[in-house]
């Protein structure tokens, strides 16, 4: 089944819309001065109004740190450099008090594990009322009516359920409740979602995906979806950022990324996916373990796992994020460095 008016087909070109938020030159290092643990290195991204961006990567790639930075949830001392502009403000310079009027109200957040996002000792109604009252002091018709409408939108029957405790709901229902709080307590123009379906069953995942798609369309929210699952990016997003070892290594429109992945990591990652119908023969598997920004090494961080090495340049210098020449696609790979000897342009070819 194909969604005929899929945004993938006519999706916005890279950086043509109206900017909503922008991350520039963000570097985050955890740990302490004696034992620094780098997490993000010089990450820049722009989020346009109403656009859905997937941030894809494996453990240690920095995807969750990037998402938390956009909500200014990373403690200030760990931020080495960079800015997170939302509207006309730099979130990284605001005081907590000012941030509290943005988080939850203008920026909604959905996390991976719905069970641990609710306090087991309080009823769902109590917890939702607190969030809704925080952002909408006096809704017409009362908070409960407002919550009822919100729950209706996420497919949870509110009748009699508000007096219940989190353990009386399934994981999928709790995730719906969290999405209701994120989307309807305030009036967010940006929804940040960190692996929102990872702990759910595949049928529930499909339902949540469909719901996120509708909510985004109806509310006109931009979405930043952090996921390890490339399929979710394909299903939900207009643009994809691929992260590796604390950096963005590829940026592309969703159709381009899957049709013409430019970075060797993206290509190898796509080939590693077990898909239905099963492809004949052995599943491709990438050698080695995912690297994090803390694994400092000279040259390209992906070089030890790369199957398209160009030679000494990969071991010696780290490539910048370079245009591949196709639809504004960018990749951090020396093969797109015009100063280098011309090499095979992966972006111009269909994947193997």
């Amino acid at each position, binding site marked *: *089944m*194909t*969604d005929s008016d*899929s945004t*993938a*087909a006519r999706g916005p070109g890279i950086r043509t819309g109206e900017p909503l938020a922008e991350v520039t030159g963000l570097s985050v290092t955890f740990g302490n001065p004696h034992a620094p643990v780098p997490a993000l290195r010089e990450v820049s991204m722009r989020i346009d109004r109403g656009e859905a961006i997937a941030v894809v990567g*494996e*453990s240690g790639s920095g995807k969750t740190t990037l998402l938390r930075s956009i909500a200014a949830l990373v403690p200030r001392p760990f931020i080495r450099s960079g800015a997170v502009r939302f509207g006309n403000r730099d979130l990284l310079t605001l005081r907590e008090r000012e941030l509290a009027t943005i988080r939850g109200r203008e920026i909604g957040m959905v996390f991976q594990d719905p069970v641990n996002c609710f306090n087991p000792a309080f009823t769902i109604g109590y917890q939702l009322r607190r969030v809704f009252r925080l952002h909408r002091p006096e809704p017409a018709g009362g908070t409960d009516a407002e919550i009822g409408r919100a729950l209706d939108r996420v497919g949870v029957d509110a009748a009699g359920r508000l007096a219940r405790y989190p353990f009386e709901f*399934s*994981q*999928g229902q709790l995730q719906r409740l969290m999405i209701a709080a994120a989307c309807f307590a305030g009036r967010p123009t940006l929804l940040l979602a960190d692996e929102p379906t990872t702990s759910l*069953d*595949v*049928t*529930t*995942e*499909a*339902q949540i*995906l*469909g719901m996120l798609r509708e909510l985004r369309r109806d509310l006109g929210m931009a979405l930043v979806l952090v996921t*390890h*699952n*490339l*399929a*979710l990016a*394909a*299903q939900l997003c207009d643009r994809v950022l691929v992260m590796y070892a604390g950096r963005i290594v590829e940026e592309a429109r*969703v*159709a381009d990324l*899957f049709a013409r992945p430019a970075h060797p990591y993206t290509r*190898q*990652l*796509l080939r*590693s*996916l*077990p*898909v*239905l*119908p*099963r492809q004949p023969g*052995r*599943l*491709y*598997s*990438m050698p*080695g*373990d*995912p690297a994090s920004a803390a694994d400092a090494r000279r040259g390209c961080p992906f070089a030890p*796992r790369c199957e398209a090495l160009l030679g000494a340049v990969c071991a010696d210098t780290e490539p910048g994020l370079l245009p591949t020449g196709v639809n504004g696609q960018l990749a951090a790979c020396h093969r797109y460095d015009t100063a280098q000897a011309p090499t095979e342009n992966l972006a111009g070819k269909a994947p193997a």
Partner: protein
Amino acid sequence: MTTASGDERSNILVDVRGLSKNYPLPRSVGDVLGRRQAAIQAVSDVDLQIATGETVGLIGESGSGKSTLARVMLRLVPPTAGSVRFDGTDLLALRPAQLRRIRARMGVVLQNPYGAVNRRRPVRAIVAEPLLAHRVGTKRERGPRVQAALEMAGLPSGFADRFPAELSGGQLQRVGIARALVLSPQFVVADEPTASLDVSIRAQIINLFADLKAQLGLAMLFISHDLATVSYLADRVAVMYLGRIVESGPAAALERSPLHPYTQALIASIPRPDPAQRSAVPPRGQIPSPLSPPPGCPYHPRCPLAMSVCRSRRPPLEEKASGHLAACHAVPAARVVP
């Protein structure tokens, strides 16, 4: 009870018949809920045969009873009814000492490698544990066996002296696999061994299982919620729903022409890594509570094909095509050619 097509296959190593596992509720809970049946039926009347060298994939949503079935098959928990035969021996009739002997021929790989190992012990000691538990070999003989198991699991010899905290998730899962292999088992149960791993590591572990299967001729029960993962390993696949097997058959048939509407919904739900194939209609509803299973076919409240008979009578698991079984009133039974 329906006989499985497994009867025709030779070399049945693991033979499960009519296996059920109920967890009784405390009386007070049963009273409060006012249930007629004060028990959770985690597994109901399951038949499953695994031949030597065969891998059976077991798929289903959380709460479908996959892990309980595996635990009962290994007699880690006693069943309520039914029998489990391992290489002809009835596991349920064995005394503890006999059971321990036969367990040396089975291995288990668990989902979360971080929770499955003692973090204070080096890899060498973790992998040697089954040898000690079964008093196999002298101290001098155990070293090489541990080394061999680590090698089979794809870990170079240097890893024996490392501690879990020094390993990545993928390496730790390999330690778990080495531990399952160290006694040279004939049968391995792998319960969601790839669920917590990164994409690139998951592919490595899938291939490791494929290699082990080919090299060691292992019989394997591979549990996963992901049919795509299972399809790369399994010869046959069984689908569980609310404690029952609702479809089973050759992996290729089940993947290409699933018969049960539940299996069809599971396959349709898998998000495709292709922006041109965006799924439009997600399946409705969620798995019902095993506390109050629906009457008739357990899937009828979610089923698009549900008829009146589905609400009153539970369909038997019967052969619908050669070696392909399904429990559905809407799928016509095969005409069995003599």
